[in-house]
């Protein structure tokens, strides 16, 4: 693979630019390109889950043995899984960004432990890695990378959830100027129960913005409520944390005063894309278990996997999981390439990483929303395939179903993320960082002109599908452009329209990623070997077009009337015209392949 990569020049793309630029298959990274070493790491991680976690899922969730999760956590540390993203000089593995995505992906199949893992390695460790001084990094990172210490992230408060900057926790400088006294209450803190280190956000005096602090448990003044009783991820410690004159040395302030909100936002960016990847392990394991169960369960004298209704479900689980993989690793590599490019220009490592992540914040939000909704879909269908057993706590689907639900809520709710991605895009367009204006004007002009009757040469694989993607981008430019003009400042209060626009962005990015992945894969393995992937690609695109049509119609109806509305609806019809595919047959083809392999066989 490395030889292929080095002989092909990759064209780089900026964050959000997928809406106005075409990407070629050679320019994206696909799951199938992971190296032998990366695959070995993924397998080691899977072996860890299979031996240390799966056999004890019930015991972990019962929380009857408070020492159990910390002991598994320590073992993860021994294997090096807690220091994946931490540079080697600070005791970590210093692995590439997409490798860390892959590990998050596999750990995602570990139920509640994946939250423990994500809270520690992501929001717990990264603030220090990206914003800490050299002293702070060398003091804390080696402990966190090896699992000697566990970390948690204290941002949310009872009255400050999605509106994080409104937190009331205060930090007051002591008279001698050597310490801050932190007072306040934090809520929904993952890992709080056994954490040794707390990243705490508080306001100094009457500051408008938050400031972040590194707080050791040993500083004192920290108390906690009992464990929260949750719907799912029951084995992950979640507690309220109270800071009562917690005495923090001034040198433990993280970054500058009032920079906390920015830290919170940037760290959540990473959390989001990691969560996108982090649902994949769960999706694969639920899809694979469903394939097995459907083969074993007999009704009317035959295995239920022989029924079209069941095949439809199995195939659809695969189609969406495949799409999520495609977009996550595409975005992951774009981020990694940008990190490398900035570092090569001489930017300090931490800064380069942050900048790259900020650049692709839109894609990160897409990954989070798409991933969490795919997971929810997959577990829901998993329960359905299991039927009555799906509802029983004695079978694995019940837990998977409950555990999945949090993903749409944490790391910024999917609603917040949808609005963020639209908001960020518009902001970038205003700043001239992305040229939406001209393409939007061109689409607007095209709407009132005679449609082109040119036919696309469909002899090449995916030529028609790529043409559809081009047109779907025009749908976004048409609806988004008009919404921006018609709603202007009111846009933010028209959240429903923003969510419609976000759905267009998500589906365009996902469908394009799927097509490009399959195209690249066909290039590697040949068309014959990729028939199920080609089928999945056609199904996904069909569904994306349908979703885009609905979302666009809703948006158009919300802010246009009369002739203008007519023109837009005609435009929508024109841009969403695609050949009808036989989804029934395609899904059967995918399901039969899964049944033959006895699992989700695409990664």
């Amino acid at each position: 693979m490395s030889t292929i990569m080095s002989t092909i020049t990759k064209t780089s793309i900026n964050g959000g630019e997928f809406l106005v630029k075409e990407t070629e298959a050679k320019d994206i990274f696909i799951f199938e390109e992971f190296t032998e070493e990366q695959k070995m790491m993924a397998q080691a991680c899977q072996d860890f889950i299979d031996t240390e976690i799966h056999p004890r899922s019930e015991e972990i969730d019962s929380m009857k043995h408070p020492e159990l999760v910390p002991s598994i956590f320590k073992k993860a540390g021994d294997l090096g899984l807690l220091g994946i993203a931490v540079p080697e000089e600070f005791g970590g593995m210093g692995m590439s960004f997409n490798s860390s995505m892959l590990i998050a992906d596999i750990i995602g199949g570990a139920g509640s432990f994946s939250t423990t893992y994500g809270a520690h390695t992501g929001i717990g460790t990264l603030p220090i890695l990206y914003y800490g001084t050299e002293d702070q990094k060398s003091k804390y990172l080696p402990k966190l990378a090896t699992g000697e210490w566990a970390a948690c992230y204290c941002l949310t408060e009872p009255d400050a959830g999605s509106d994080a900057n409104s937190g009331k926790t205060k930090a007051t400088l002591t008279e001698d100027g050597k310490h801050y006294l932190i007072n306040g209450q934090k809520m929904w803190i993952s890992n709080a129960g056994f954490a040794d280190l707390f990243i705490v956000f508080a306001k100094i005096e009457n500051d408008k913005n938050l400031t972040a602090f590194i707080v050791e448990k040993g500083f004192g003044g920290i108390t906690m409520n009992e464990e929260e009783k949750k719907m799912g991820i029951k084995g992950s410690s979640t507690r309220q944390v109270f800071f009562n004159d917690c005495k923090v040395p001034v040198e433990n302030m993280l970054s500058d005063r009032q920079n906390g909100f920015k830290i919170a936002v940037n760290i959540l960016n990473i959390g989001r894309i990691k969560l996108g990847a982090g649902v994949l392990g769960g999706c694969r394991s639920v899809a694979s278990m469903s394939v097995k169960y459907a083969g074993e369960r007999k009704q009317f004298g035959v295995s239920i996997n022989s029924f079209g209704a069941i095949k439809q479900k199995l195939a659809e689980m695969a189609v969406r999981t495949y799409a999520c993989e495609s977009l996550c690793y595409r975005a992951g590599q774009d981020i990694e390439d940008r990190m490398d490019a900035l570092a090569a220009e001489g930017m300090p490592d931490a800064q380069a990483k942050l900048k790259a992540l900020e650049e692709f914040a839109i894609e990160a939000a897409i990954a989070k929303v798409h991933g969490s909704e795919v997971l929810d879909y997959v577990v829901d269908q998993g329960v359905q395939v299991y039927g009555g057993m799906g509802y029983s706590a004695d079978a694995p689907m019940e837990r998977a179903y409950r555990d999945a639900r949090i993903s749409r809520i944490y790391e910024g709710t999917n609603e917040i993320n949808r609005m963020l991605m639209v908001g960020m895009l518009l902001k970038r367009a205003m700043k001239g960082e992305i040229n939406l204006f001209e393409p939007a004007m061109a689409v607007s002009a095209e709407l009132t002109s005679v449609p082109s009757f040119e036919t696309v040469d469909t002899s090449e694989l995916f030529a028609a599908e790529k043409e559809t993607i081009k047109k779907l981008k025009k749908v976004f430019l048409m609806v988004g452009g008009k919404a921006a003009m018609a709603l202007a400042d009111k846009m933010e209060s028209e959240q429903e329209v923003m969510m419609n626009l976000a759905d267009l962005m998500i589906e365009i990015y996902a469908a394009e990623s799927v097509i490009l992945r399959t195209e690249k894969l066909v290039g590697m393995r040949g068309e014959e070997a990729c028939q199920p992937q080609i089928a999945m690609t056609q199904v996904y695109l069909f569904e994306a077009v349908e979703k885009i049509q609905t979302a666009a119609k809703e948006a158009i109806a919300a802010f246009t009337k009369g002739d203008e509305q007519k023109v837009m609806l005609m435009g929508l019809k024109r841009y969403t015209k695609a050949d009808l595919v036989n989804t029934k047959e395609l899904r059967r083809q995918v399901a039969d392949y899964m049944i033959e392999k006895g699992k989700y066989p695409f990664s």
Partner: protein
Amino acid sequence: MKILVCITHVPDTTSKIQFTENNTKFDKNGVQYIIGPYDDYALARAVEIKEQLGASLTVLNVGEAETEPTLRKALAIGADDAIRVNSFPKDSFFVAKQIAAIAKQNGYDLILMGRESIDFNGGMVHGMVGELLGMPSISPVMKLEIEGDKVKMAREIEGGKEYVDAKLPLVAGCQEPIAEWKIPNMRGIMSARTKPLVVVEPTADAVVTDVTSFILPPAKGTVKLVDKDNVGELVRLLKNEAKVL
């Protein structure tokens, strides 16, 4: 001390087993390969000995280029270097000959391997290697402790255990619970890349057997329930259908 661990490259236990070419060739299509589970125990024990007593640890596989990821996994788990004898492992005697040739060259104190592979399950290689090298060969070893040049072992025997002492050098075919399987850690995986993996050509062909064909066991049939009052029917079925009486 120099330890050699012989590793087989075998299909994952959940693989679907199929044959091609008129049932004479194993169908590798879509099969995932692993370190033979018994060899994995042997390797885990060798890594422990290396950590406790200090030793150089070499892993060896007789196989074609496709087996290298399996060898590299063994390096990630803790071996220092690897040797691949570049040939399809034609039969037990062929493999034993290759191992013996390498061992004669390099002079190992302890040669460990699994009690058997899990593909062809011959369970003969350790015995043959011992014979070819003139060393004691003990199997299946479930416990192995080294005290000086003495090796204290426990063997599984019918209905119990047998304790065996022998002197180095020796060959042992291992099984659980000799050690716990080791999952390679991330650092091990990263360092495996830079550890030496030498490819050597096999010594003269020493094949003594020829596989004519394979057959899969018959598919599991359905369960027949016989009413408890109908013992005659049960006897008839056992006689005529199951043919066990």
